[in-house]
């Protein structure tokens, strides 16, 4: 595969961009692989990449029912941060954020990681105390965050109205090295490297059944025929319960719709990410100039990848109080994704009751930021049978009552 570089851009400019080649090869399924990963979202692709890079396992197929990156990975609002409360979360999210810092170099693919800073507004006394606690926890965990004053908030984000009558801004939890990245590029960059290592990415290949024998996985049934494997990784986000049922076990997961919207593009007006959890809205400005806005989830199980009007209205109504300049903006597009929610709002990275089957799910409304760290941990778990980063995120935590409660840190969907 050709390296991408400034030199390559110049070379191709001189020959009408005819020499770029495909970023990943088109594959036909083999009869058998050492490892099959179901789901070519960010987490599945990152798992495959680190299996190859860190453990030399490259006889790997990644099966995707739609198109690569077409699930939540291509539908999210791309906020990256690691200011969670509990130690296991801080460890994996900060690992991921750290990997994002150099991901473009590692993958030789510009993922446009932009550590522009993320602020989570405190708009009630309760939130002030909650975020101060998180800031203290973060400094013990080695995650750089700070509780800042309303004045600092206004300096960092002048378009904000900090003394709104209903929800004045009382301060914010500020993570200067949080930010955003280009979601598609993260999926494409990992996919290109996986393909370069000889892995097969099979798109339009839906897994319809899981074959097991004597409590151990044998392979999968797919729309492209049966494929055998030694180990199987299920990384299908909102469809985790469907795949688990095929494999014969249950999960503490419910699938809900989460939606986002973008405005028409406008001139740069905001160079940080702002999250307002009390009013359930968050916003950043994309490089194209669109205001990228996300809100809350539906309260009921849903597989439709759509949103609903009243949620848009709620989100926008709430944000306008804090960002009055939004009121005249037209909204361009709106979409939904199916997010996989656990009771404690923490993910599951785990072996399963079936031998050889591993699962990575439960990232819910906030797993884009975790992609590199999650792939790293999942690859280690699948290659070696255990992973320090994944340890606390096992399925057994629900039997043992060892929750990793992030319902406050995760507060709003992001």
């Amino acid at each position, binding site marked *: 595969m050709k390296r991408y570089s400034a030199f390559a851009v110049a070379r191709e400019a001189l020959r009408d961009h005819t020499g770029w080649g495909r970023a990943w090869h088109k594959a036909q399924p083999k009869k058998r692989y050492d490892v099959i990963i179901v789901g070519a979202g960010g987490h599945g692709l990152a798992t495959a990449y680190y299996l190859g890079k860190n453990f030399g396992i490259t006889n790997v197929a990644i099966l995707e029912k739609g198109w690569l990156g077409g699930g939540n990975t291509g539908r999210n609002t791309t906020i990256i941060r690691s200011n969670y409360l509990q130690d296991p979360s801080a460890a994996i999210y900060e690992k991921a954020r750290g990997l994002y810092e150099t991901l473009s170099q590692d993958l030789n693919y510009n993922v446009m990681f932009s550590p522009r800073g993320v602020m989570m507004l405190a708009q009630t006394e309760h939130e002030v105390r909650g975020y101060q606690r998180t800031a203290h926890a973060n400094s013990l965990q080695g995650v750089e965050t700070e509780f800042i004053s309303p004045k600092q908030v206004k300096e960092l984000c002048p378009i904000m109205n900090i003394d709104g009558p209903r929800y004045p801004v009382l301060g914010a939890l500020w993570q200067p090295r949080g930010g955003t990245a280009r979601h598609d590029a993260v999926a494409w960059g990992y996919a290109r490297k996986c393909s370069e290592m000889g892995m097969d990415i099979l798109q339009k290949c839906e897994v319809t059944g899981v074959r097991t024998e004597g409590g151990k996985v044998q392979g999968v049934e797919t729309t492209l025929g049966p494929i055998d494997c030694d180990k199987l990784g299920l990384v299908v986000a909102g469809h985790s*319960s469907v795949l688990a049922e095929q494999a014969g076990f*249950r999960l*503490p997961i419910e699938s809900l719709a989460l939606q986002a919207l973008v405005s028409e593009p406008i001139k740069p007006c905001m160079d940080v990410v702002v999250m307002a959890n009390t009013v359930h809205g968050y916003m950043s400005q994309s490089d194209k100039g669109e205001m990228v806005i996300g809100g809350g989830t539906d309260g*009921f*199980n*849903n*597989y*439709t990848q759509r949103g609903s009007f009243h949620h848009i209205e709620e989100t926008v109504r709430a944000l306008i109080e804090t960002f009055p300049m939004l009121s005249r903006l037209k909204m361009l597009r709106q979409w939904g994704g199916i997010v996989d929610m656990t009771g404690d709002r923490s993910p599951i990275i785990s072996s399963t009751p079936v031998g050889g089957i591993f699962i990575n799910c439960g990232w819910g409304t906030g797993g884009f930021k975790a992609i590199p760290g999650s792939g790293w941990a999942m690859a280690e778990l699948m290659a070696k049978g255990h992973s320090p980063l994944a340890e606390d995120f096992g399925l057994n935590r*629900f*039997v043992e009552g060892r929750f990793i409660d992030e319902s406050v840190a995760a507060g709003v969907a992001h």
Partner: protein
Amino acid sequence: MLIFECPYCGVMAEETELTAGGEAHVKRFGPGSSDEDFETYLFHRENPKGVHFERWRHANGCGKWFLAARCTNTLEVFGTYPAQTTRPPEPILEAIRAKRPGFQWRDLA
């Protein structure tokens, strides 16, 4: 937008009048039950891509809880019934089976 007929007050209630309450007909297990039953009761929920039985509350209406059969994939509503019902009523099951041959849901349908 979802629309349910409230089985108590007969109002055709839309989503913003209602609060979702999760899976219906959950069997409760308390102290003294096996670890597995307790875990299942607390955390495991049906999460079908298809017809599901759920609790809903007519929050901005008569305020009462009721149960409903709804497809999570098409959002089609197959019927609503009072919360005091211990299993899905037969007419609703028939309506579902007519459209979804072989339909199953836990050990209740």
